[in-house]
C-alpha cells in the first residue's frame, strides 16, 4: 500500500511538471486560438538563456532570471511583429505549422548562441528526498514538491491577473471574441505580445524546473510532446484543466508504468498518456474542462 502511495504521489508530482508546460499552451490558445507547438522549445530556449547568462556573464541568479524574462518578452515582441501580425485570419492549421517553423528557428538559435552540450542548471532549488515523508518510508523529491508549490502559486497569480487586472480583462475579451474585442478598442497586437510574454515566462518556469531535474539539453524541448495529452485531457482552453489533466496523466502514467509496464516489456510512458487522454476524449470530445463545442450549420 505504501508503495502504491509512493508511486501515485510521485506521479502526481511529475504530472504537475507536465502541467507547467501545458499552462503555456493554454494561455496562448485561449487568447489567440493558436496551437503553439513551440512551447517546449521555448522552455528549452529560456533555460538555455538562463544558464548562458549565469555561466558566460557570471550573473547572480536573480539578475539572470530578470535578464531571461527580458529576453522572453523581447522574443514575444519579435514573434508578434515578424510572424503573427502577418498571419491574422489564417486557418488554425497554418498558424500551427508556423509555430513548428518557429520551433525550428528557436532550436537552432539556442544551439548557436549557447552551444548544444548538456548543461547543469542550479539556482538553489533544494534537491534530494523530502525528509519527513522519507521517515514514513515514501520517497518524494524536494524539487518536485517545490515545482508543485510553484505551479500552485503561478495558477493563483495567473487567476488574479486574468480576473482582476485591466489587461487580464482585455485578454478574456479577446479570448471570447476577436472582433468584438477589436470594436471596443482593445489592441490585438498588444494583447498578443502580452500573452506570448506571459507564456514565455511560464516556459521559463517550466524550463527551470525541468532543467534542474534532468539538465538543460535538447530533450527538454520534447516535453512539449508530454504536455499534449495533458492538454487534450484538460481541454485546450482551461487553466484548471491543464493542472488537473496533468495530475491525472502523471498518476495514470506512473501507475501504468509500474504495474502494467513490465507485462508488455516496459517503456510505455511514450504512448500511454496519449491512450489515456484518448479514452477520456471518447466521452468528452472537448476535454474535461474545455468549452462545450456548439456547432451550427
Amino acid at each position, binding site marked *: 500500500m505504501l508503495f502504491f502511495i509512493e508511486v501515485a504521489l510521485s506521479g502526481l508530482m511529475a504530472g504537475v511538471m507536465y502541467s507547467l508546460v501545458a499552462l503555456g499552451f493554454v494561455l496562448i490558445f485561449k487568447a489567440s486560438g493558436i496551437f503553439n507547438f513551440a512551447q517546449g522549445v521555448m522552455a528549452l530556449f529560456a533555460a538555455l538563456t538562463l544558464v548562458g547568462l549565469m555561466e558566460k556573464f557570471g550573473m547572480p541568479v536573480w539578475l539572470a532570471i530578470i535578464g531571461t524574462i527580458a529576453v522572453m518578452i523581447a522574443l514575444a515582441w519579435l514573434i508578434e511583429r515578424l510572424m503573427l501580425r502577418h498571419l491574422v485570419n489564417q486557418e488554425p492549421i497554418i498558424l500551427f505549422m508556423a509555430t513548428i517553423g518557429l520551433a525550428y528557428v528557436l532550436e*537552432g538559435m539556442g544551439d548557436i548562441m549557447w552551444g548544444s552540450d548538456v548543461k547543469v542548471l542550479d539556482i538553489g532549488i533544494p534537491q534530494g528526498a523530502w525528509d519527513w515523508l522519507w521517515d514514513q518510508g515514501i520517497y518524494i523529491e524536494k524539487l518536485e514538491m517545490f515545482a508543485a508549490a510553484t505551479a500552485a502559486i503561478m495558477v493563483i497569480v495567473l487567476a488574479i491577473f486574468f480576473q482582476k487586472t485591466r489587461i487580464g480583462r482585455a485578454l478574456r475579451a479577446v479570448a471570447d471574441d476577436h472582433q468584438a474585442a477589436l470594436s471596443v478598442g482593445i489592441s490585438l497586437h498588444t494583447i498578443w505580445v502580452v500573452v506570448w510574454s506571459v507564456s514565455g515566462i511560464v516556459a521559463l518556469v517550466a524550463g527551470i524546473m525541468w532543467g534542474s531535474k534532468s539538465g538543460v539539453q535538447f530533450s527538454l524541448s520534447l516535453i512539449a510532446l508530454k504536455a499534449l495529452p495533458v492538454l487534450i485531457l484538460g481541454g485546450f482552453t482551461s487553466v484548471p484543466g491543464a493542472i488537473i489533466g496533468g495530475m491525472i496523466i502523471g498518476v495514470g502514467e506512473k501507475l501504468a508504468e509500474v504495474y502494467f509496464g513490465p507485462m508488455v516489456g516496459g517503456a510505455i510512458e511514450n504512448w500511454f498518456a496519449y491512450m489515456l487522454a484518448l479514452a477520456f*476524449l*471518447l466521452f468528452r470530445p472537448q476535454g474535461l474542462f474545455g468549452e462545450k463545442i456548439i456547432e451550427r450549420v
Partner: protein
Amino acid sequence: MFYRETGQFKASYQDDQALFPIDQDRYVIFAVLFITFAVVPMLLNQYWLNAILLPFLIYSLAALGLNILTGYCGQLSLGTGGFMAVGAFSVYKLMVAFPELGFIPLVIISGFITAAVGTLFGLPSLRIKGFYLAVATLAAQFFLIWLFNKVGWFFNYNATGMITSPPMTLFGVIITGPEASPVAKYYLVAGFVAVFALLAKNIARGRIGRNWMAIRDMDIAAELIGVRPLVAKLSAFAVSSFYIGMAGALYFAVWLGSAEPTEAFDINQSFLVLFMIIIGGLGSVLGSFLGAAFLVVMPIMLKNILVDGFGTNTALAAHIEIITVGILIIGFLIVEPHGLARLWRIAKEKLRLWPFPY
C-alpha cells in the same frame, strides 16, 4: 493564348468528364510522363537518382496519402511516421515470408495492411475534431513505433532491432537490397507514383472525393445532405493510410535498404510530410509533388551551399540549416498560405489571357 479551352468541343459525356478535360493539360501530363520515364534516367547520374529523385518520389507518395486525409477530408493527422512504419514492417515480414509473390504485389498488400491499421486509428475521428484529433493521432505514432521496437516478431528477433530488405527481382532485374542499381529503383518507384497519383486524382473527383470535400468544408452540413460521416471519414483514413503504407514500404525496401523504427519513422517524419502538403497546397495532387520537391531539395541545397560554398563546419551548418528551414516555412506561410499549387493556379489564369491581359 496557349492555355485555353476555346474551340475544344466536347461531343460526349465521356469527353466532358475526362480526367484532364483540356487538351493542354493532357499534353503536359504526357510530356511529364515521357520525361520521367525516358529522359530523366538517361540524363541524370546515380547521385541525383539516389539522393534526390528517389526520396522525392517516395515522399510525394506519402504526401499524396496525407493530402487525401488532411487536404481533401480535413482530418488533421500527425501519425504519418507511424503509418509509414506499418507499411515498412509489413513489407519486410511479407518479403521474408512470401518472396515468391513478387515485390509489387507485396507492396500493395502492405498498403492494405496499413489501410486496416489506419482505419482503426481513424475511429476516434468520428467523435473528436480538429486539434484534439491531431493530438489523438499522435497516439498512433508513439504506440506503433513502440510496438515495432518492443515486439521481436516484427523484426524477426534479430539482435539489433533493425530490418534489412532482402534482395528481390522483377523481370530478372534486382530492385531491392544493396546490389540494386539506382535506375532500376527509380523506374520501380516512378511507376508506383505515376499509377497511384493518377488514381488519386481520379478518386478525388469522383463520388468519394466529393464526399470527403463536403465533410472537410462543413461536416454537419454534409451530414444533413446525406453524406455519411462514418463512411467518408473512415474511407479517407483507409485510402490515405494505403498510400502512406506503400510509401513507407518503398521508403524502407527500396530507398533506405535497412531501417530502425525510432530513427527512420519518428515524429519528425510526420511533421515533414505535413509541411510538404501545406507548402505544396492542401487538397491538390500537384501540390503534394511540389511540396515534396521543395522540402527534399531545399535542405540538400542549403547544406551544399553552406558547407561547400562558405566552408562552414558541419555542426554550425546544421544549426543554420534548421533555422533557415524554419524561417522559410514561416515566410512561405505568410506569403502564400495556400501553397505552391495556388501559385500554379494563378499562373494558369494568367496564361489564359496572355499576352492580351484585357
